[in-house]
């Protein structure tokens, strides 16, 4: 165990590539409340990281810091070689490389499914309309709902909306995908269709950070599981290690409650 503590950034020795996300000693406060405490994580390209933990433990805040929906106050976050600073061109550059899927879908209700997906590629990547729409159609086929292309979000079921949201994030051809509890707002029968899309995405080699309560998904797909508690990473490891031989009492307590 002592050996493990000496190498907190354990993954860096594993791959020859540079990590695509580097977080060092990230701290964040909401007012006086210390939300993230010295969080240090490296994520390798093509790695699937699942973040679990009790609610209020800072896991959502953590992934929202990665694309600057929240601003961290101390420490460093480096995404794809670009350091997150106050410079708006940095932030824009990072956001272009990161797709994000929200718990509440957050589709634009005044745009059709097609417009929802093609908006950002056209406005941000400045693709011609044909290219953006072709990409949108391709993604809709990939998430399995090409027939909904001209509907408005309000006309779709929750599962369909979340799949559109995934397609919308993928349309920017991001290198990293962030999922913030993507299945929490869904009816049980719709969870599977969304998880299937995510599994397919993981198999295709996308770098993913997923905040979720779906332990089955974590077991099946994750390369690594992070356990958050009180704003810090208490324990991390492969799914087999995590679900079978977790060490920390908080982890054990948490697992005993949900399994």
């Amino acid at each position, binding site marked *: 165990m002592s050996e493990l503590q000496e190498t907190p950034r354990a993954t860096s020795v594993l791959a020859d590539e540079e990590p695509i996300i580097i977080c060092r000693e990230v701290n964040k406060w909401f007012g006086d409340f210390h939300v993230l405490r010295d969080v240090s994580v490296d994520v390798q390209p093509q790695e699937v990281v699942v973040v679990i933990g009790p609610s209020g433990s800072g896991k959502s805040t953590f992934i929202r810091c990665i*694309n*600057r*929906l929240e601003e961290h106050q101390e420490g460093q976050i480096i995404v794809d070689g670009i350091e997150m*600073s*106050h*410079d708006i*061109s*940095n932030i*824009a*550059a990072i*956001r*272009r490389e*990161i*797709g*994000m899927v*929200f718990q*509440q879908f*957050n*589709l*634009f*209700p*005044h745009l059709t499914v097609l417009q929802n997906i093609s*908006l*950002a590629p056209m*406005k*941000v990547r*400045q*693709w*011609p*309309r*044909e*290219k953006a729409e072709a990409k949108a159609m391709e993604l809709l086929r990939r998430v399995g709902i090409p027939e909904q292309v001209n*509907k*408005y979000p*309000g*006309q*779709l079921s929750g599962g369909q909306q979340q799949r559109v*949201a995934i397609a*919308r*994030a993928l*349309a*920017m051809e991001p290198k990293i995908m962030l999922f913030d509890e993507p299945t929490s707002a869904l009816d049980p029968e719709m969870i599977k269709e969304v998880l299937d899309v995510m599994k397919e995405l993981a198999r295709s080699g996308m770098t993913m950070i997923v905040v979720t309560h779906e332990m089955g998904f974590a077991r099946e797909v994750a390369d690594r599981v992070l356990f958050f508690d009180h704003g810090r990473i208490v324990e991390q490891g492969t799914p087999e290690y995590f679900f079978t031989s977790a060490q920390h009492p908080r982890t054990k307590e948490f697992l005993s409650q949900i399994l």
Partner: protein
Amino acid sequence: MASSEQNFNTRNRIIPEFLRDIRVLQILGQIIFLIIVVAFLAQLVSVAANEMRANNLTPNFTFLQNRAGFEISESPQWYTSNSSYADALRVGIINTLRIVSTGLVTATVLGILVGIFLLSTNWLIRTISRVYVEILRNTPLLVQLFVWYYIVMFSLPQPQQAVTLPSEGVLFISLRLVLYAVAYVFISRSLRHLPTDAPRRLMFLTGFFAASLVMETAFYLYHNQADWAGVYGRGDLGAAAFLLYAGISAVLIGGAYFVPAPFRPYALGAAAGQLIGGLLFYMGIMPNAALRMELYPAVYLSIRGIVFPEILPTARFAEWLAFVVLGIVAAAMMWVYFRRVTETTGRLIPRTQYAVLLMIVLAAVGWLIVGAEPLPTAVPISGDDGIIFVPLEEALARDLLSPAEQLQYTSQPLVFLRPAQNRLGRFIVGTQFSPEYMALLLGLVIYTSAFIAEIVRAGIQAVSYGQIEAARAVGLTQGQTLSQVVLPQALRVIIPPLGNQYLNLAKNSSLAIAIAFADIFTTMTTVMNQSGQSVTGIIIIMIFYLIMSLSISFVMNIVNGRFQLVTR
């Protein structure tokens, strides 16, 4: 059970069957209601008509053809006191429509601005706009109108001492400052392509300005000491100035390469600022070379209202207009074409800028071509002994031409006439707006803007924060987030109450009577007082306002329909 059955039967016997049918009952009830309403209205009308007849008045519309006999201060030229009542009403309608149309646009713009201020992250701005809104919403419009008219307008100066914009005088724009600004823009633009590193860029610019400041101070001190009256701008700067420049330059440029790396941008910036400032100085453009511009008043603000320059089309205006129309058509075609190019190839072309440029170029070229046409050298003047030809310059100099002829013999397609006053301070040239018009417009616009601001704030706040986050997460910029995501959704909340405020503004314009602005309501009251035709008068006013309200509702309903969301 039995008793109720019995009841039922008793009723059955008393009330015939068809009267128990709910449909019949409903129709009967409505007929009775209708009869009561109609009878009441008929009673009203007949009593009113009787009363009026007793006063020797018959309600009719023919009186509208009678001579009005009163002047309207704010009227087109065709209206005189000899015009008919109908003409007076026409003037009133024009004035109401002027106020309402201008008011709607300005109130919307101001309201949106204040609404955005209400949501500002800046506490001070937020508070100021909150106070603005609360004060305006909680005091009567009439009181505000009185304040605008009797207090604000009446405290304006007499026309002879009118507040002018710009005020007459000479403006010097220092060339040095212009060049600094150009250098600043150039440097900061070129720095944008360097690796993104904000502090370094900041350091560079700080150095640039610091050095410039030092230079400027040094020159200023030197200049004051030496009293160079008469020497400015000739390049005769003397050895001292050269030494000063050379010394600072050498130190800074040389030193820039020896300073430690983190501070090198400072030094380089300082050297650049020094170099540019010094060169300008040494080349003799300095220190006082300036663009000298004589400014003359264009807008006059006084107790008589506001006066703008008059823009008059001349005889050649039509020819120039052809060029302008051509420019608009060409620009539109180009814009459409470029949009197609962008959509098919993805190649970005700044199509709007190009289109505007094309329009301006064509208008300018047209102006030159039209203006280049030679004027006749001599013009016919009809004098005592028939028509004689007088050279144009002489005719102009001796003031022989009527205003219309002057416009005919002008080479430019448009002439801009600055306002001019006669000795009594009356404006004889210029587009004038009376103080009544201004007070009413200001009152309506500012009052309505407070309500619109609240509507805009509520509309924007109704867009859930998740939408903004999603827009950011897919990489949209702040402007794109606002224009593509927030506004389209806010508008659907904003438009219905906004339509109500538009209606209120249109209706509130009738308060013109309180400050005697000649709108439809004021004119109609005068007509009613003179002719005694109060019933007809009120009916005409009501119909006018109803039509105006209905038109506004109609337009807003169409707009609203376009923004509704489709849901399951």
